[in-house]
């Protein structure tokens, strides 16, 4: 019966201290009763394999012991939804703060490694946020149970009705936030240290002066883009805010395109003396101007659609008809 004693010992270790002896005595009796029943039926003592089968049927010691404990949560399901919302919001805010720092470092012309290093410290910061928010909510839960906040509520204080629209996937938003930050930092560093963009072609090809003229505009766009994608993560259902952000971003795009279209040289020859490069750049600049014009036309159309949707969502019924008439 050594196996049974070992089994009971394992269960005992995982039981609440006060219940240990009592529960083990009872379980011991249950197991021995079952052994006796089987031995009576077989007319012989149980083999080791049969004892193993019997104990396996009783369940893993950890599982058996767990049933004697009351169910525990780190965060009570009642307040979990608020906890999850706050945690996401703070994680997004911290990410935005770090991304803006990275953009600022990149904008001052420091190395890409230094700028990305700030972003790479995010997991550690996120862990710290998780620990703090969780601790605060555990304390809130204890306070909530003690003072029974949920008993003191008034239906009139509930939020007003909102139009429900399909939400965007959280993974999509998080990936969007990370990509926009990494791309933004790379772009800002690349404009100052062009080999990050042109790679082996850097000695042959450089950006024209216009790109440096509108550099502050790119900084604004990168910061705006990070904020915009962070809002997607923190408030996935905020469709109206999303539409406004999209419209402002398109307007910023149009300003950049205006400067690019009016610049004569978007690309200039690099330091290397490459034969025929002048002709190639002439063709490239013409093609780029055509492309810039095409993108600008598409952006204007999209901005028009955004304005239309914003107006349509703003007004209902007759109000909408009047608004459409005027706009």
């Amino acid at each position, binding site marked *: 019966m050594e196996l049974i004693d070992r089994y009971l010992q394992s269960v005992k270790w995982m039981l609440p201290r006060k219940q240990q002896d009592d*529960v083990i005595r*009872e*379980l011991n*009796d249950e197991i021995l009763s079952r052994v006796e029943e089987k031995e009576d039926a077989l007319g012989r003592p149980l083999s080791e394999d049969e004892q193993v089968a019997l104990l396996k049927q*009783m*369940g893993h010691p950890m*599982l058996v012991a767990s*049933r*004697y404990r009351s169910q525990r949560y780190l965060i009570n399901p009642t307040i979990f939804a608020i906890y999850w919302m706050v945690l996401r919001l703070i994680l997004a805010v911290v990410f935005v703060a770090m991304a803006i720092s990275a953009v600022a470092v990149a904008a001052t012309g420091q190395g890409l490694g230094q700028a990305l290093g700030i972003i790479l410290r995010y997991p550690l910061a996120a862990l710290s946020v998780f620990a703090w928010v969780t601790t605060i909510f555990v304390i809130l839960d204890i306070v909530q149970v003690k003072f029974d906040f949920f008993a003191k509520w008034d239906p009139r204080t509930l939020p007003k009705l909102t139009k429900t629209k399909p939400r965007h996937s959280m993974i999509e938003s998080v990936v969007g936030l990370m990509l926009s930050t990494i791309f933004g930092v790379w772009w800002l560093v690349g404009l100052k240290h062009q080999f990050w963009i042109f790679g082996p072609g850097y000695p042959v090809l450089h950006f024209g002066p216009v790109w440096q003229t509108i550099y502050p505009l790119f900084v604004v766009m990168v910061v705006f883009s990070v904020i915009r994608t962070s809002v997607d993560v923190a408030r996935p259902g905020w469709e109206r805010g999303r539409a406004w952000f999209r419209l402002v971003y398109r307007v910023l795009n149009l300003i950049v395109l205006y400067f690019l279209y009016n610049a004569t040289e978007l690309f200039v020859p690099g330091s290397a003396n490459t034969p025929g490069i002048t002709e190639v750049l002439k063709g490239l600049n013409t093609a780029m101007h055509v492309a810039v014009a095409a993108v600008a036309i598409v952006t204007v159309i999209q901005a028009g659609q955004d304005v239309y949707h914003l107006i349509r969502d703003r007004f209902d019924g007759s109000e909408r008809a009047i608004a459409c008439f005027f706009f």
Partner: protein
Amino acid sequence: MLRMADNSIAEILENLRSELRRGSLIVAVLAELRQEQYGYTLRKSLEEHGIAMDEGTLYPLLRRLESQGLLASEWREQNKRNKRFYRLSPQGEVILTELLLDWENLSQSLTAILQRSQAGHAPETSAPSTEAAPQD
């Protein structure tokens, strides 16, 4: 894909069954313990009546019901072994009576709902069999 769907349905069914049984098990245990019994005999007796319950469920439940004052227990020696005997406490008797009343009401309501829903389906289900009957 089909197997996955089968597994998922089996899992849902199992969860619903266990939810359906949970409340009834308590009533069954309380009712059985109108007569004093120890864990093993109680489990056997429930099993004989078609209510199988593993030890991992029964013993923690007995402990919980005792801590709520619905059961009383004492250790006594029987067949040269110490056993913990449980019986329904006076408070448990009151609770059991109430629960049985609720059970009866619930059962009557459910029966009425089932009868009504079966009556609603009756013409649809009986129609094809009438048509398919051989005409001599």
